[in-house]
C-alpha cells in the first residue's frame, strides 16, 4: 500500500469521494435489480394467474357441456401471447380436455393436473390453476410460459443500471475533482508556503488562513511556529554575532596578554633569582624561629618540613618526624573523636582552621597548643598540602585560668558587699526615721517647758533648756541629712537633659532669700547642660553652693563661681569660692560622712553633705575632687560620666 500513502492528497480525496459514491450507487443498483427481479417474477406469476383465471372462466361452459372443440378454440386465443408456450384444460376427473401449443412446439403435457400453484423450471414458468363454477371446481387449467419477457426486463434494467453507474461516476469525478480543491487547496498552499520558507530561509513569510476549520487551525499553529522560529533565529544570529565579537575581543586580549606575558617571563627570569634568594632567607628565618612550630604537611597529612621551634615544642627531630602522619601530635581522646581529619576539612572548606587544645609531645607529656592550619593550593586550585603553625600557650592558659579564678572571687565579694550595703542603707533609713519622733518630742516638750515654766526654772534653767532644744534640732538636721544620703543611694537613676545653669540660679536665689544681708558676687556660666537625674543634681548643687555660701560667711565681700573647666580635652564642672578654705592634708576626710574640718561653733553642719554629693556623682559614673588652701578658698570639680 506504499503507492496509496504516497498518492497526492488531491488524488486521495478524489479517490475517496469516487469510491464512496460508486460503492453506494453499485449497492443501490444491486438492490434495485434484486428488487426488480423479485417483483417482476411476482408480477409474472400474478399476470399468469389472471390469464389462467380468465381462460378457466371462459372454458367453464365448454367443460360443463363437454365441448372439446369449444375448449380448444378458447385456448387458441393464447396465440396473441407469444411467451405462452403451452396450455391445457383438464376435466374435473383429471382427463386432458383441450390442449394448446405454440406453433413449432410439441410440448409434453402432464398427464394429470397437479395441485394448484406455480413454479419456475429452468427457463419456464409452469402453473396449475383450478376452474371454478359457482364455487365448485369443474376442472383445471395448465399454463407454461417462457421467461423471455422477464429476461428482457432484466436486460434492459441492467443496461439502465450500467448507464446510471457510469454516468454517475463521470458526474462524481467532476464534482469530486471540484470538491477536493476545497480540501487540498489550503493544504497545498500551506505546503507551498513551507517550501518557499525552506528555499529562501525567510521566516517572515506567513501562510494565509482559509477558513476556521482544522486547516485554519494548522495554519495558525504553523504561523505561530514560524514566529517562534523567527524569534529564535534572530536570537541565534545575535548570539552568533556576539560570539564572533567576543572571539575577536578575546583574540585581541590574548595577543595583548601574550605580549605582556613575554615581558613578564623576562621579568620572572630576572626576579626568579631574587626569589630564590629571598626564599632561602625565609627558610633560614623559619628554621631559626624558636617559639613557634612551623611545618608543612603534604596533601595526605604527612609532615614535609620541620623547623627548630617544632623540634623544641614537640620534641621530635626533623629526621624522626618527616614523612610521619601528623595525627601523632594528638591525644588518644582527640584521635578517637576524629579531630585531625576534621581540622584539615575545616581548613579546606573555610580556608583556615584555628583551634586550641591539648597536644601530645614525643615523651607523652601534654601541652596546651594554639594551632593554625592553612591549606596550600597549586595554580589550578587543588590542595597540595597544609601549613601548620603551633604555639605552646600553656603559660598563657595558666595565667588566664588564674585570672578567671580571681575574677570569680572578686565577683563573689562584690555581691556580698552589695548585699551588706543594701542592708546598711535600709538600716540607716529606718533608724533615721525612728529617731526623729523622740527628737520632735524632746524639742517640743523643752519649748513647752520654756514657755509655761520659764519663770520657775530660772535663767540657768532656761539656758539649759535652750541647749537641749539646740541639741535636739541639730540632731534632727543630722537625721535629715542622713535620710538624704540614704535616699540618693536608693531608687532608680533617671537620665535626662538637665539645665545646670538654671538649676544653680534657683539654688542661689533660695540662698539669697534666706540670708538677704550678705554681700556675695555670684558668677554662673550660662548654658551649662548635663545628662542626669535632675533631683539628685539639685542635691549636688544645693550642697556645693550651700557650702560655698557658708564658708564665705566671714568675708565682708565674697565671690562664688559655677562654671565649666577645660583641661587637655577633659572638661569638668566647678564651684569656686574665696572663703576660709582648708588644709589639703585633711582632704581624705572631706567626703567621709560625719567628718568635719571645722568646729560647730565656727561653721554649723552635719558632715554628711559632701558624702551625699560624692555618692550622687559616683552613681552618675562621675568623679569629684577638690583643691583648697587655708584662707584662700576652695574649688570643687566634678564630672557626670
Amino acid at each position, binding site marked *: 500500500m506504499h503507492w496509496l500513502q504516497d498518492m497526492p492528497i488531491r488524488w486521495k480525496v478524489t479517490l475517496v469521494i469516487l469510491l464512496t459514491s460508486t460503492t453506494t450507487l453499485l449497492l443501490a443498483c444491486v438492490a434495485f435489480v434484486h428488487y426488480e427481479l423479485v417483483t417482476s417474477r411476482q408480477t409474472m406469476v400474478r399476470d399468469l394467474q389472471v390469464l389462467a383465471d380468465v381462460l378457466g372462466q*371462459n372454458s*367453464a*361452459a*365448454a367443460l*360443463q*357441456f*363437454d*365441448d372439446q372443440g*369449444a375448449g380448444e378454440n378458447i385456448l387458441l386465443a393464447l396465440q396473441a401471447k407469444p411467451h405462452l408456450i403451452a396450455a391445457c384444460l383438464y*376435466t*374435473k*376427473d*383429471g*382427463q386432458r380436455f383441450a390442449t394448446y401449443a405454440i406453433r413449432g412446439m410439441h410440448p409434453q403435457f402432464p398427464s394429470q393436473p397437479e395441485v394448484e400453484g406455480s413454479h419456475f423450471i429452468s427457463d419456464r414458468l409452469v402453473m396449475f390453476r383450478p376452474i371454478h*363454477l*359457482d364455487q365448485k371446481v369443474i376442472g383445471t387449467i395448465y399454463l407454461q410460459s417462457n421467461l423471455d419477457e422477464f429476461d428482457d426486463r432484466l436486460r434492459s434494467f441492467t443496461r439502465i443500471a450500467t448507464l446510471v453507474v457510469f454516468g454517475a461516476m463521470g458526474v462524481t469525478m467532476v464534482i469530486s475533482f471540484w470538491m477536493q480543491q476545497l480540501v487540498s487547496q489550503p493544504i497545498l498552499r500551506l505546503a507551498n508556503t513551507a517550501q518557499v520558507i525552506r528555499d529562501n530561509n525567510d521566516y517572515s513569510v506567513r501562510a494565509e488562513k482559509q477558513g476556521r476549520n482544522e486547516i485554519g487551525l494548522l495554519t495558525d499553529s504553523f504561523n505561530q511556529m514560524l514566529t517562534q522560529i523567527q524569534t529564535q533565529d534572530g536570537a541565534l544570529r545575535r548570539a552568533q554575532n556576539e560570539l564572533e565579537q567576543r572571539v575577536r575581543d578575546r583574540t585581541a586580549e590574548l595577543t595583548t596578554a601574550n605580549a605582556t606575558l613575554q615581558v613578564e617571563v623576562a621579568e620572572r627570569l630576572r626576579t626568579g633569582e631574587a626569589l630564590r634568594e629571598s626564599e632561602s632567607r625565609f627558610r633560614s628565618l623559619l628554621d631559626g624561629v624558636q617559639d613557634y612550630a612551623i611545618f608543612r604537611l603534604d596533601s595526605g597529612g604527612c609532615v614535609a618540613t620541620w623547623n627548630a621551634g617544632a623540634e623544641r615544642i614537640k620534641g621530635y627531630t626533623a629526621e624522626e618526624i618527616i614523612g610521619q602522619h601528623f595525627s601523632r601530635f594528638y591525644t588518644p581522646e582527640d584521635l578517637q573523636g576524629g579531630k585531625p581529619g576534621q581540622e584539615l576539612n575545616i581548613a579546606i572548606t573555610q580556608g583556615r582552621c584555628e583551634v586550641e587544645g591539648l597536644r601530645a609531645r614525643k615523651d607523652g607529656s601534654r601541652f596546651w597548643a594554639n594551632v593554625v592550619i592553612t591549606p596550600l593550593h597549586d595554580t589550578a586550585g587543588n590542595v597540595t598540602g597544609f601549613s601548620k603553625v603551633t604555639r605552646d600557650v600553656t603559660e598563657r592558659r595558666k595565667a588566664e585560668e588564674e585570672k578567671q579564678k580571681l575574677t570569680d572571687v572578686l565577683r563573689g565579694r562584690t555581691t556580698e558587699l552589695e548585699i551588706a550595703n543594701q542592708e546598711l542603707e535600709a538600716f540607716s533609713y529606718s533608724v533615721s526615721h525612728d529617731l526623729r519622733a523622740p527628737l520632735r518630742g524632746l524639742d517640743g516638750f523643752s519649748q513647752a517647758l520654756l514657755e509655761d515654766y520659764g519663770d520657775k526654772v530660772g535663767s540657768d534653767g532656761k539656758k539649759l533648756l535652750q541647749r537641749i532644744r539646740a541639741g535636739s534640732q541639730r540632731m534632727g538636721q543630722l537625721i535629715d541629712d542622713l535620710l538624704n544620703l540614704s535616699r540618693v543611694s536608693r531608687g532608680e537613676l533617671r537620665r535626662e537633659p538637665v539645665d545646670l545653669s538654671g538649676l544653680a540660679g534657683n539654688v542661689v536665689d533660695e540662698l539669697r532669700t534666706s540670708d538677704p544681708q550678705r554681700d556675695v558676687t555670684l558668677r554662673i556660666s550660662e548654658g551649662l547642660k548635663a545628662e542626669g537625674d535632675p533631683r539628685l543634681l539639685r542635691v549636688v548643687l544645693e550642697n556645693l553652693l550651700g557650702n560655698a555660701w557658708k564658708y564665705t560667711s566671714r568675708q565682708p565681700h565674697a565671690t562664688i563661681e559655677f562654671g565649666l573647666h577645660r583641661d587637655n580635652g577633659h572638661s569638668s564642672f566647678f564651684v569656686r569660692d574665696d572663703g576660709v578654705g582648708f588644709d589639703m592634708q585633711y582632704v581624705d576626710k572631706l567626703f567621709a560622712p560625719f567628718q568635719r574640718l571645722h568646729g560647730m561653733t565656727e561653721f554649723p553642719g552635719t558632715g554628711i553633705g559632701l558624702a551625699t554629693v560624692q555618692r550622687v556623682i559616683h552613681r552618675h559614673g562621675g568623679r569629684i575632687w577638690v583643691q583648697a588652701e587655708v584662707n584662700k578658698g576652695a574649688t570643687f570639680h566634678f564630672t557626670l560620666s
Partner: protein
Amino acid sequence: MSLLEKSRALSATVSRRATLLALLVVTALRSDAADGTGKLVREYDLKAAFLFNFTHFVEWPSEVFADTNAPIVIGILGDDPFGPVLDKIVEGETIRNRRLVIKRSQQIEDLKSCQVLFISKSEKGHIDQILSSLGDASIFTVGESEGFARHGGITNLFLQGNKVRFEINAQAAKRRGIKISAQLLALGTVVGPEAAKEID
C-alpha cells in the same frame, strides 16, 4: 362407443362418484347394463345433465322469484323421460344460492311459475299452443322437437352423432327478459325468427 370406453376407463381411476359428471356416467352405465335400450337411456341422462347445466349460464329477472331464497323450479310438461336421474342430479345442488326443485305435470297451467320448462316429446302436437299460453313469461323453455326454437321456444336439444347438441333462440330469450351467457351462446347453435322463416 368411444364415450363408453372413456367412461369405463374413468370408473377405474376416479374414486369419488358423487359429483355431477360422474353421477351422469354412472347412471348411464347402469341403465346400459339394465335394459339394453342404452341409447335412449343415455340420451336422457345427458339431456338431464344439460337441463341442470343450463341453470348455470342463464339469469332470470329477479321478479320471477318470490324472495331471495326461492328455488329455481324445473318443470317437466308431459311424460317424464328422465325418471329419477334428474332428481338425483339436482339433489343438494344450488345455483347462485337457490335450490333446484323438479315439478312434473301434464297441465301447462300447473307449470306457469317454473323458471325452466322442459316440454316432453309427448306434447309435440301442441307446442305452439303451449308457447302462446306462456306468452312473454320469463321461462327458459327447453324442447326436443325440430323447429322448437325457431317457433318461439328458447332452447332445443337434439342429437348429433352420439352427442347431445342444442339450438338457442337468443331473441326469444331476450323478449322474455332472460339473459343467456355468451359462453352458452358460443356452444349452441343460435337460431332466430329470421332463421325460422327461412326454414319455413
